[in-house]
């Protein structure tokens, strides 16, 4: 359904502000994730440090969105599409905050172990990380443009990241069997790989919320898993 503006302009503005804040938070989280991955790709630890620092802003956005949502519920009693808009914003902001946290966590591990890491594992990490970034970008676009099909695509393609993670973990363990001195680095890399997989899961959660926002229905069936 295409929506007419509300009769009460200030209500319209509050809902628009909520949407804009989600988009801003999403853009920030995307950048955080990108910096984290590029830090490893470009072997530039300052990018990881930037990602850690930027997580403060992500947390602030989450609190701000929560305040906006509580105000809307208390003061406007939103109904139908407006109610879904409000509830979905709360849930999406929480998933975005987790993506920010996971990026920060990866960055922290990187600052601990440095960027001089086994090439085969970092290559795998890079591929999975870029895939996760793409998922986050696509799902934010689906939110911005109310694109149901894009949300469904994100939901369906999380399986790929799961599969990548499984094989990347196996490869990392195999590397460790041959290079026992790398134990500290590889252990950290295993957590980093797992974090990428979790980021994919949060993108999928957001896809479910966007689908609900647009249709009022829940995505049915089991989420594809690798």
């Amino acid at each position, binding site marked *: *359904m295409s*929506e*007419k*503006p*509300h*009769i*009460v302009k200030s*209500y319209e503005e509050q809902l628009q502000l909520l949407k804009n804040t989600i988009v801003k938070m999403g853009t920030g989280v995307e950048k955080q994730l990108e910096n984290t991955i590029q830090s490893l790709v470009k072997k530039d630890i300052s990018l990881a440090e930037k990602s850690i620092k930027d997580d403060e802003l992500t947390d602030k956005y989450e609190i701000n969105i929560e305040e906006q949502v509580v105000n809307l519920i208390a003061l406007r*009693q*939103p*109904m*139908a*599409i*407006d*109610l*879904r808009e409000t509830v979905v914003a709360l849930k999406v902001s929480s998933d975005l905050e987790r993506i920010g946290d996971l990026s920060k966590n990866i960055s922290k591990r990187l600052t601990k172990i440095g960027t001089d890491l086994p090439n085969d594992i970092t290559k795998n990490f890079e591929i999975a990380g870029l895939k996760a970034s793409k998922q986050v970008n696509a799902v934010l676009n689906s939110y911005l443009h109310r694109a149901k099909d894009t949300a469904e695509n994100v939901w369906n393609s999380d399986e790929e990241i799961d599969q990548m993670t499984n094989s990347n973990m196996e490869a990392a363990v195999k590397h460790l069997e041959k290079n026992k001195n790398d134990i500290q680095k590889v252990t950290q890399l295993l957590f980093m790989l797992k974090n990428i997989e979790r980021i994919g899961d949060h993108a999928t959660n957001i896809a479910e919320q966007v689908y609900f926002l647009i249709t*009022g*229905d829940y995505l049915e069936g089991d989420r594809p898993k690798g």
Partner: protein
Amino acid sequence: MSKIKAENVNVYYGSKQALFDVSIDIAEKEVTALIGPSGCGKSTFLRCLNRMNDVIEICRVEGSIKMDNLELNSRKLDVVRLRESVGMVFQKPNPFPKTIYENVAYGPTIHGIAQSKEEMDQIVETSLKKAALWNEVKDRLDEIGTGLSGGQQQRLCIARAISVSPEVILMDEPCSALDPIATAQIEELIDDLKKEVTIVIVTHSMSQAARVSQKTGFFHLGKLIEFGPTDKIFKNPDNQQTQDYITGRFG
């Protein structure tokens, strides 16, 4: 189970048509809310259910309205008996300028329901208890009904309506003149009454419709635009006009 089934109801005030082909199934012992902007026909429809439109000379009702297979729109129908089965509560509390006791006893008296003073006392007490007013008025039943607060007066009107054991109660914006506490008391009462009675309520308060009803019908320009489970109507209505109205995008 359906209590009232309206089919293709058209209502005219002189040459002006107020309702267009309204068909609706009102479920037994449920609360059905009718919402819509002023002049949309929701009160007109409500008044068809106990033939209140009869008092408007230029009003003409066409179509079928059956309550348990009894055709309510038949000229042969005993309207007094109908109003014993289908009670009504109005926007503004309108107790009679009589005592609290007489207000409640009025219906049972004219319908010859009580056989003795004891039986009448019992009906008055039970009705006031069901209307959640007994504790507040039991020691002053001989005081004038219009001396009560607005919320108490409205509950007195509900007690008066239920004193004849109706099967259906129609409520036309019953809380619009009441404060939030009195409104909550009426809503609690509606929740309680629906165990025994079918209730149809017209309200301008979206949140009230959402709180008290199980089914909601949205009227616009004399047409029933959408009718369905209340949670569906308020969470994800099928019709764009319904969504525009309940989200404040109308106009």
